């Protein structure tokens, strides 16, 4: 029987050690898998090699991983927001490595990772600081920069609807990086607003086919005050 549904959030991260590369989908708070981020925090995994477009806001959600000191490296396009000061401190003190790239390059590197394309040329960033040290090549008279694919051991995804095969739909602009991350991670963990019966999602409207989903949970709200729980064991 092909059933991606799981009960235990703790089991979802079993066998994942410190230093794991984890990709988190979402843009701002839209399509951000906050229940899974909380489970990652609760798992105690350290030295996370984190890939996420944003670094989070406030002290909850994604930002809590930084406050708890769990992130060794952040790969993103925009490390600013409400936790800018913390990010600055982590980077300048050498406690966190930072790799920043154009947003479309990040998206395409993740897409390529999920699709078996090891590298690609993009016109983005040619002639800028970001292209320094990278291979470049001209196509049709225009300069391009070689960028490599990104994959991860774990991908955290937020869906709107899911079925037990792991087929997913996303709502409005909560789609963003979600289908890309689903494909690019070896183990894709999904939280969905609703898990529906097989056939309830019109095959024409599947945004991410089930083959990419490994573990599937129903989203439950994370109590706002529980984001500070890590302090008790720190």
């Amino acid at each position, binding site marked *: 029987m092909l059933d991606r549904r799981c009960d235990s959030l703790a089991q979802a991260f079993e066998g994942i050690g410190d230093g794991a590369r984890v990709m988190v989908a979402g*843009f*701002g*708070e*839209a*399509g951000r898998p906050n229940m899974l981020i909380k489970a990652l925090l609760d798992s105690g995994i350290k030295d996370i090699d984190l890939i996420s*477009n944003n670094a989070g806001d406030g002290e909850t959600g994604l930002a809590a991983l930084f406050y708890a000191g769990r992130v060794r490296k952040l790969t993103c*396009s*925009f*490390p*600013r927001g409400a936790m*800018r000061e913390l*990010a*600055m401190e982590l*980077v*300048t003190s050498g406690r966190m490595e*930072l790799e*920043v*790239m*154009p*947003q*479309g*390059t990040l*998206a*395409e590197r*993740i*897409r390529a990772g999920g699709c078996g394309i090891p590298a690609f040329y*993009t*016109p*983005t*960033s*040619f*002639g*800028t*600081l*970001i292209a320094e040290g990278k291979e470049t090549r001209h196509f049709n008279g225009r300069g391009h920069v070689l960028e490599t694919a990104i994959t991860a051991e774990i991908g955290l995804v937020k869906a709107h609807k899911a079925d037990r095969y792991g087929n997913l739909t996303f*709502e*409005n*602009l*909560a*789609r*963003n*990086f*979600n*289908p*890309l991350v689903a494909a690019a991670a070896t183990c894709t963990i999904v939280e969905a607003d609703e898990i529906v019966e097989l056939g309830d999602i019109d095959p024409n409207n599947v*945004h991410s086919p089930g083959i990419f989903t490994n573990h599937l949970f129903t989203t439950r709200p994370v109590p706002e005050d529980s984001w500070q729980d890590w302090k008790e064991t720190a």
Partner: protein
Amino acid sequence: MTPLTRDGIAARLAQDIQDGWHVNFGIGMPELVANYLPEGREILLHSENGILGMGPYPDEKDIDWTLINAGKKPITMIKGASLFDHAWSFGIVRGGHLELCVLGGYQVAPNGDLANWARDADDPLPAIGGAMDLAAGAQRIYVMMTHNANNGAAKLLTSCTYPLTGAGIVKKVFTDLAVIEVTDDGFLVTDMIPGLSREELQARSDAPLAFSDTIADLTDRAA
């Protein structure tokens, strides 16, 4: 002479957006242009996080946090909108499908170079977002900015001193004092605010300016 307000610059820029264009407005000042799109033109707004057909900001009671723009502000969708993932969205950008992108600017050079993402190459916390992809991908880049920095420094420079967002990509610059085309021969002024002399405009610019045979009056359409 009265320099244009930010809304005045937006309203002037909006006049140059044609019916049927697909347009991305960068975060910040360019977002204002959406308020001044000329009546009778159908212009579809793109946002990097995956939409064509972005509508106005919603009323407080209608906010849906799955409907946000690249600046993470709540938006609405117009009838006929389409949604797609981030890879497709930047495929639209990089693939040259957008007729126009409007970006803010720190510095622009006569060769079309734009600097708008960092004032310091050694910033420990650089933030790029989608600006470099938009700069590289849109069919034309218009830059919207004040003519001078807060400290009076020129922003139209012989060559940019800040890190580049894109090389050779700017087609037009809209400031609070003038509209300037970027041509093969450098900057060409086409519009100026009344009462400003060519000498004064040149004095407030570092790069040499050429002037069109006829200079249009740059008036505040937003006022």
